């Protein structure tokens, strides 16, 4: 326990790094994911193809391989950004594919009549999608998207592998110095669980607020 309390400052610094990178990535992934979904159901074949390829690519490639590629390899091609920024960008494009999958399953749950009614009213594709389909689809996928967000927070721990000191790296470093694995790793684990619980409760609350009762 003492090891945990003595090292509270570096561990909290790690936690704050985890938090701000997770929040930034979450916002980015949500925005990009919805855009990709819109592309995927659009009438323009090229956009549909690009969105499909995008989702398939990032669902099938490991995040760690992407992180290593972006952090260690791409600087050789002159693509160099500050390290935390690179990691956040990678996480955004990776998780956006999962968000897009979740939102698309939501689009599939919207009743056919809704789209037909919107078209019968003479709404254009953009109006149909923007004011009829997506609002209902997004309400239906609060829980699945919440699960993606939990996975996103867990995945920020992989940043430790490319040299960013976030919560997992901070815990590991503290343990290497003090050799007190039990309190340190249990503390870090409980923190991640608390974050996941927080997201779970938040999405539960949000779902009750926005769910459409039929």
């Amino acid at each position, binding site marked *: 326990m003492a090891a945990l309390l003595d090292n509270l400052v570096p561990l909290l610094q790690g936690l704050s790094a985890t938090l701000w990178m997770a929040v930034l990535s979450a916002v980015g992934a949500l925005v990009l994911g919805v855009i990709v979904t819109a592309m*995927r*159901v*659009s*009438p*323009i*074949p*090229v*956009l*549909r193809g*690009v969105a499909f390829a995008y989702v*398939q*690519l990032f*669902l*099938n*490639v*490991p*995040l*760690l*391989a*992407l992180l*290593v*590629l972006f952090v*260690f*390899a*791409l600087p*050789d*091609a*002159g*693509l160099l950004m500050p390290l935390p920024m690179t990691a956040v960008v990678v996480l955004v494009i990776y998780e956006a594919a999962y968000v897009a999958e979740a939102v698309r399953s939501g*689009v599939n749950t919207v009743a*056919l009549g809704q*789209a*037909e009614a919107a*078209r019968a009213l003479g709404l*254009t*594709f953009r109006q*149909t*999608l923007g004011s009829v*389909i997506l609002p209902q689809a997004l309400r239906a996928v609060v829980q699945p998207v919440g699960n993606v967000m*939990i996975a996103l927070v*867990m*995945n*920020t*721990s*992989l940043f*430790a*592998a490319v040299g960013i000191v976030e919560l*997992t790296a901070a*815990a590991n470093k503290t*343990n290497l110095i003090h050799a007190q*694995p*039990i309190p340190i*790793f249990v503390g*870090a*684990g409980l923190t*991640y*669980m608390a*974050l*996941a*619980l927080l997201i779970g409760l938040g999405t539960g609350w949000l779902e009750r607020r926005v769910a459409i009762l039929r």
Partner: protein
Amino acid sequence: MSASVLYDEPGPKTRRRIFLWSVVSALVVLGLVVLGLVQFAKHGQLDAEKWAPFTQWPIWEYLLVGLLGTLEAAAYVAVLSAVAGIFLALGRLSRVRPLRWLATGYIEIARTLPVLLMIYVTLFALPSAGVNLPLLWKLVLPLTVANAAAFAEIFRAGILALPKGQSEAAVSLGLSGGQTMRFVVLPQAVRHVTPSLVSQLVSLLKDTSLGYIVAFTELLYRAQVLSAYNHLLVQTFLVVTFIYLVCNGFLSFVAHRLQGWRRKREPEGTNG
């Protein structure tokens, strides 16, 4: 719902607009690709001699041995966590309260712990407690702990999705609870969730890339060793990303086909 219900059958004017936008978006995509290639070329990453090693068999052999390690680890994790997952799912659905609590607690905890944290525990915490596992198991154990929970949730969903009449019929035929589970419920439930199981296999295969941290001989680790030796970081990691894409793309395709095949065989509403 297919995409086409979102818009009407295009008329001549809309067709022109769609064509125009197709051209514009194709140009934008093409422009981005060209921009990337120019950037790569400017830094000499497209030079033939930098890609030439990847036309030679020994390099591929080196990477494919890594892929073999990936598949080996993935196979261990898949089998172990599928077995553990079935028991955890049964535990979570059990009528025995302590068993239910135990299984539920395990699943909820394992689902909300980062795998890397567990790997650090097996790498740095367990040895100091006197448990020093072989390299393969330092990767397989944490991945199994995490994936067992995921498999359990998939199996549980499959069992819950089965109509109640199935187990009621089995019980009325005089089968015991265990027999009902083994001969009636589980076979149907497993078949029902096969696509999800294959998708989980993809996620698990991706997870084995953490062997990079454990220094277990798998694809990403071999790529790192190779790039340290030939200094072709961009090329090596792009090739490895491509290998992952091919392997997992194939699995995803199988999952997709299984799903389509299931839907055709079992029209909406009927189940099992």
